[in-house]
């Protein structure tokens, strides 16, 4: 089973890289969904022996949410917004991928540096960190509002995997509450994107920088 889990880890890392280079918005949404589903399945593979019913139930909820509900919500937001179909990165794709690889190297280093307990699955901590970095990469170097939501989801995926790595047993109620939060967050963000697209011409966040205290050119005289 662990080999299988390690394969999944590799898959997740590859998905990170793919996210860094994909230009099409809809592919991005799909990639994030796939990553969510894969991450959701991970606990079933990583544990020793047959998974608990609880874990099964949980995995089912996650897969439904991340695999079906979120992509649907985001796709709808994308369609309504009538935005252009690519992610409009602020830096070039090669730069993105370089940053992503750099993040992966940094994650490996940090993974070894962080004072973590031994894990059973190799690479799981670096992978989770790399995923979190990729999420940040999406948020900070892409200009559209939707990609920022995607980034948030990728970070969430990374944290989820990280949690698995640490074997922290969250009580059911907490787990559910967290999931609910994430769900509502995406929902609210979706609504916000809808409003943004209505108020502004498109969902480029460059438009969303009117609130600023920058006194450009008012100093040094």
């Amino acid at each position, binding site marked *: 089973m662990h080999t299988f889990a390690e394969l999944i880890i590799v898959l997740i890392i590859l998905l990170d890289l793919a996210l860094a280079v994909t230009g099409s918005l809809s592919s991005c949404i799909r990639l994030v969904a796939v990553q969510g589903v894969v991450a959701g399945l991970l606990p079933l593979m990583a544990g020793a022996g047959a998974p608990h019913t609880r874990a099964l139930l949980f995995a089912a909820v996650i897969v439904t949410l991340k695999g079906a509900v979120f992509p649907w919500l985001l796709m709808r937001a994308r369609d309504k917004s009538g935005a252009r179909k690519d992610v409009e990165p602020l830096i070039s794709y090669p730069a993105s991928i370089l940053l992503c690889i750099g993040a992966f190297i940094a994650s490996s280093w940090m993974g070894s540096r962080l004072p973590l307990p031994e894990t059973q699955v190799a690479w799981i901590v670096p992978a989770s960190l790399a995923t979190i970095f990729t999420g940040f990469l999406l948020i900070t170097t892409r200009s559209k509002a939707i990609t920022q939501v995607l980034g948030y989801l990728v970070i969430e995926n990374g944290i989820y995997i990280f949690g698995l790595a640490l074997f922290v047993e969250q009580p059911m109620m907490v787990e559910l509450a967290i999931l609910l939060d994430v769900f509502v967050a995406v929902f609210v963000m979706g609504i916000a994107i809808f409003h943004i697209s209505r108020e502004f011409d498109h969902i480029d966040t460059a438009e969303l920088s009117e609130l600023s*205290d920058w006194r450009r050119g008012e100093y040094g005289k």
Partner: protein
Amino acid sequence: MALVLLSFVILLLSAFLALCLARNPRRAQDAGAYGAVAASLAGLIPSVKVLFSGVSETLALPWPVPLGSFTLVLDPLSAFFLVPVFILTGLSAVYGVDYLAHYTGKKPLGLAWAAFNVLTASMALVFTAGNAVLFMLGWELMAASSFLLVLFEHEKAQARRAAFIYITAGGAGALLLLAAFSLLGAGSPVMDFSSFVFPAGRAASAVFLLALCGFGLKAGFIPLHVWLPEAHPAAPSHVSAVMSGIMIKTGVYGIIRTLSLAGPCPEWWGWTLLLLGAASCLLGALFALAQHELKRVLAYSSIENVGIILLALGLGVIGAANRAYPLAALAFAGALLHVFNHSLFKGLLFMGAGSVLQGAGTAELEALGGLSKRMPGTAMLFLAGAAAACALPPFNGFAGEFLVYLGAFRSVSSTGSIALAGVIAGLSLACAGALAAAAFSRAGGAAFLGEPRTERAAKARECGPLMLFSMRALAALCLLAGLFSPFLLLPLARAVGSGFGPAAGLEAAEAAAVPLIYVSAGGLLLLALIALAWAKRRAFLGGRKPAEGVTWDCGYAAPTPRMQYGASSFSQPLTDFFQPVLRKLGQYPVISEYFPGKASFSTEAQAVFYNSFYYPAAARLRDLAYRFSWIQHGRLQIYIMYIVVTLMGLLLWKL
């Protein structure tokens, strides 16, 4: 002590009442003024009692506030400051009734009275508080209430600017004081002054410097004076009188308390005080000479006088550090006596300026003149106050300065650094005195004497009876305190004793008694001679009626008021000489043709320290802030980046 408490209660109640009666200005005036006068009378009794008996009184009530306790201490030093508080606020309140009546219907008089009474109460609290929190409560209430009064005519941009500078200086000062208190009371859970332990070594110097700057921002010596010449002219005149007469003395009081708490002080503290005092008294007098507005002249004169007080304190500290105790005692006594005297004559002068402002509608010196004919009472009282401010005998200003001089002279014949300190002190006093005399003869002359320079001045009317009453009372006090200064020695010795140790009090009394008696005798002789000369003059006239004519203008028979020497021409030789310091701005006509046409001429005294230091520093700071304003850039991506980068940094640094 109960009476002091009663006076607090009366003040706060009457302030509240004045606010409630704000709809009816007359009633509000009555509530405020009666309250202030009653509170003054109630407060004077215990203060005077403590001064003469020398027995301190303490009142401690439970006050559940962290660090705080409701401890009031009335020792002779406090009482010595409280006496002018109550004298001046009581008389100012009387003056204020007539002064503010002018604004009925135009200004919220209820609020003005409430602020005035709260100001009085807070000053009394500052002088009696025995706990840091209580002290700061009084201190900041004082700042806030006087801030509101400075904004009395807030529609004037100048008043708003003054209020801003004032409140900022006050706020900064308060913060410094908090730091000083924190250092002093670091070890005690309740910040009572009695529990304060003066730290040793560098921390002691830190406390001294913090207290000096913190209190100095209120006392207004140079270079911490910037708010003073702005705020005093902006406030209503009876408030200016109180602010200049006593409020700035709260700073002096604080410095004295700090010195008293510190016990034996290092000599350089004394030098700091001495040099700051010397700079203040010289520059203050010099700036006063260059001002064009009567109340500004007075404000700068306050800076000069605070400088004199500070200089005396510095001399005292140097003396004490060199174990020249009688000298130190004389200097301390001089400082305290000058505190008292200054409050009287400066109150009088500001009231006089207020009368001018109200009678002639302006206090611009170049627009006044000839008021002595139109407002004879005010003119005479103001000029008496001016004489007192120039420390001319027989008025009271002389006595305090005389003690300082005496201290300085005693030190001149001793060895080492004290002699130098004495020379610096004496010389600064002499120079400042000469400059102050020039400034006041200029101001008094331009405002009251000669011919009116404008229509408004020509139509000036004498001020109301209550205003005159207050000024007369103060002028009488100035004269009496000057003539009978030996009688002030006992309270003075008590105050010095409670501030600097009982031995100092005795020494001061011993050293000052004989010379002061002679000075009194000289003053009485002078008055007698003046009376004699006056009587003789009449006798010489022998009933003949003097002839009247126009002023002799070298044969020119139709002199006009415009031909008089104005205030700026009067001071021009001196201000030109000191131009490098004064940096007055001006436009002078250049005459190049044989038949020049119309020409205009203007000078403007600028606030040198504000314009060349504080304002540029503030502008630099703002520029710096603007430079960093890109932090709040507007782009979400960058904001998220901050979080990531900070987190990474923290992880790398801390793990």
